[in-house]
């Protein structure tokens, strides 16, 4: 089977599952056939994964490791003037592309997605709407795969919007809960703000390049069609990056991600850890040729990445809900990925996407396993001493814990350390960026260890009724955890081959001046040692505060109440946003109400008015038709009747009158003939 030529099938497998759920899902669930639903939906993702493997294997032997297949032209040939005055045609194809970058992404998405689908069969088994969950999850996979495999910005944006929609649907899955629906709305609205910027960036791209195809744009940028440091380059990349901050939860548009934990845990694992939130990183990496030409934007990207990393980590230090800690951890790790992109090490950002997908998905699924064991308890203050009671969950989560802390030889160490090394060498504030990342690494180790110690060790603070029901998760939930644990351990060992594999995508653009700074190789080992040291320090500090001497953490909180409250309340960012953008005088509710009133009266009024006008002119038309046109027709008949009346009288019935007429006619004829 030619996997590569049929690459457009990959997104369609999960779409088929979603459509199937739409039509027969409810019937299946009411017929107690949940295992059928699970097999179909998870199986289809598995098929997509196998197909993806086949396609990537074929890609390896393809020339230049590049494959593009336009299916058909979707938007064809609108002529327009480009920014430089040239006449061009805008086409957007329904086209799919596979190159090393999208190969990595598609494997991660389908692989981790498949594992999470399998896990969900067990996790969601007792929930109403089992079929709805899998339908949405499959729809999400379709959109994510469209995003990753698209060959142009427009089709990617279709997938981009689609995953935002599915995120909304899945966050608000328990729609009877107001907090869940609010969170879903918040996610979608905040996402939308980023999308607006993305669209502007897209418009700017095709005004400048005349095309939105990735390959053509990259070629044009590498050939020097875009000036280094030019205003155009900076604007395009800034708009794209703002779009990425919305999707990938960076400052200032990260506020939706912690609230998104209202959704079921597999959703948090798949969408808000492994796949959707990495779409922003993927997009920046895909546009790396453009970003390389805009050093100002790169600085912004690196700065925001680093700032978000440390900001979110600091909030995660004091959160009590196990999923919230993981959510802020995700925001923080995404900051690392953008930091990597911002210093020009795009491949490292993608590498961290991959390793993060493994251990973060594992952490989320593991926490789901814990929540499942504790009959729904999510507050870490009510956990403890679970290591012996749910041993396998503990062992697998421990693997992810060590990985995210950055201890070698597990996966997290390789990617995180490479990011810090690349940041250190950056010619713009490299040392400061490194320092921020370094401190964040320590905080990461600290809060993750805190999570593990509070949950699995120490004294049991579990509620009495819950304690009786603690049980290990079924195999269908543990097996994916196991696979992810193995991947978290070995996932970093292919760092160099991956760098080599991704080289052609992230070629250095010619017009960009090469950075001169590259500190001595031995410095790398020094930094490596420091990273490991700070990670171990974080772990031991957490052990002190939350295992050996629990009272110490409470004393610390009591001694610094202001800071503790600030962190616990997430720096009051949500409250500030609410006050400015929702209740605020300029941008808030009043503006919204005013605009909606404008829409209802002016716009709708215009539309209704057009309809009213049409009806009015049509009644005039009716009058014309029924009185004048029909009148003319009737008039003909009337005139005929009028004329016939005297003519009738000739026919008297008397034969002699007819004879008289004959005689009269003969006389007349005779007169004229003889004249």
């Amino acid at each position, binding site marked *: 089977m030619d996997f590569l030529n049929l690459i457009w099938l990959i997104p369609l497998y999960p779409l088929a599952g979603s459509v199937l759920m739409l039509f027969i899902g409810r019937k299946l669930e009411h017929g107690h056939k949940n295992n059928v639903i699970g097999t179909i939906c998870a199986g289809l993702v598995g098929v997509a994964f196998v197909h993806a493997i086949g396609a990537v294997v074929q890609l390896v032997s393809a020339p230049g490791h590049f494959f593009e297949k336009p299916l058909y032209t979707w938007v064809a040939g609108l002529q327009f003037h480009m920014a430089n005055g040239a006449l061009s045609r805008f086409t957007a194809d329904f086209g799919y592309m596979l190159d090393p970058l999208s190969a990595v992404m598609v494997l991660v998405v389908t692989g981790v997605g498949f594992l999470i689908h399998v896990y969900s069969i067990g996790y969601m088994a007792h929930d109403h709407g089992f079929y709805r969950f899998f339908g949405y999850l499959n729809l999400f996979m379709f959109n994510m795969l469209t995003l990753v495999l698209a060959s142009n910005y427009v089709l990617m944006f279709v997938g981009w919007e689609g995953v935002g929609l599915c995120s909304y649907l899945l966050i608000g899955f328990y729609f009877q809960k107001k907090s869940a629906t609010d969170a879903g709305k918040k996610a979608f609205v905040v996402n939308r703000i980023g999308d607006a910027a993305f669209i502007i960036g897209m418009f700017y791209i095709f005004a400048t390049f005349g095309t939105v195809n990735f390959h053509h744009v990259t070629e044009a940028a590498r050939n020097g069609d875009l000036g280094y440091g030019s205003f155009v380059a900076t604007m395009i990349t800034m708009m794209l990056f703002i779009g990425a901050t919305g999707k990938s939860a960076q400052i200032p548009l990260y506020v939706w991600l912690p609230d998104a934990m209202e959704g079921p845990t597999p959703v948090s694992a798949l969408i808000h850890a492994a796949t959707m939130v990495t779409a922003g990183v993927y997009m920046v990496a895909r546009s790396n040729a453009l970003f390389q030409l805009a050093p100002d934007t790169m600085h912004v990207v690196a700065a925001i990445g680093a700032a978000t990393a440390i900001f979110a980590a600091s909030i995660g230090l004091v959160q009590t809900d196990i999923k919230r800690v993981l959510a802020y951890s995700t925001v923080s790790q995404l900051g690392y990925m953008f930091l990597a992109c911002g210093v020009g090490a795009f491949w490292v950002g993608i590498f961290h996407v991959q390793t993060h997908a493994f251990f973060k998905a594992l952490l989320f699924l593991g926490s789901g396993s814990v929540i499942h064991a504790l009959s729904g308890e999510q507050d870490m203050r009510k956990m403890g001493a679970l290591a012996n009671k749910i041993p396998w969950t503990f062992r697998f989560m421990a693997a992810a814990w060590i990985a995210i802390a950055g201890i070698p030889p597990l996966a997290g160490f390789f990617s995180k350390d490479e990011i810090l090394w690349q940041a250190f060498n950056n010619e713009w504030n490299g040392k400061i960026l490194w320092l921020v990342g370094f401190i964040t690494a320590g905080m990461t180790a600290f809060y993750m260890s805190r999570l593990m110690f509070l949950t699995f060790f120490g004294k049991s603070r579990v509620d009495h009724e819950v304690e009786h029901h603690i049980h290990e998760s079924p195999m269908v939930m543990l097996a994916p955890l196991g696979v992810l644990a193995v991947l978290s351990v070995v996932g970093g060992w292919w760092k160099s081959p991956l760098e080599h594999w991704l080289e052609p995508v992230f070629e250095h653009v010619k017009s960009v001046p090469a950075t001169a700074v590259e500190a001595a190789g031995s410095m790398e080992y020094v930094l490596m040692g420091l990273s490991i040291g700070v990670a171990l320090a974080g772990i031991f500090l957490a052990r002190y505060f939350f295992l050996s001497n629990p009272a110490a953490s409470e004393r610390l909180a009591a001694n610094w109440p202001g800071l503790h409250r600030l962190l616990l309340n997430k720096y009051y960012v949500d409250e500030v946003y609410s006050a400015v953008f929702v209740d605020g005088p300029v941008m808030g509710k009043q503006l919204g109400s005013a605009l909606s009133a404008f829409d209802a009266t002016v716009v709708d009024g215009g539309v209704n008015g057009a309809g009213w006008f049409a009806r009015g002119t049509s009644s005039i038309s009716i009058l014309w038709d029924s009185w004048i046109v029909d009148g003319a027709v009737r008039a003909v008949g009337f005139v005929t009747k009028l004329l016939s009346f005297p003519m009738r009288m000739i026919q008297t019935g008397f034969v*002699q009158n007819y004879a*008289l007429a004959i005689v009269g006619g003969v006389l007349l004829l005779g007169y004229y003939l003889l004249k």
Partner: protein
Amino acid sequence: MIPISNYLFLSTALMTIGVLGVLTRRNMVIILMSVELILNAVNINLVAFSHYWGTVHGQTFAIFIIADAAAEVAVGLGLLIALFRNKEVVNADQIELLKW
């Protein structure tokens, strides 16, 4: 010789009486008789001219007309008798159904 105009006056007078009879008389039998009168007037005219020109055409035509008149009377009377059997009328002004 008798001048031809005498014969022509005679036939004209007969013709006029016949036409007036057709137009004026009410009894249908009298109308038929008036039609015979017209035909005979034509005959006199034809024979007069035949004598005048010295040919025989006029007389031949006159004999045709006599035969034709006989047939016509037979048909006409047949119509009249059929009408009388149905409607018991003898006056022409009593048959006026085919009118406006």
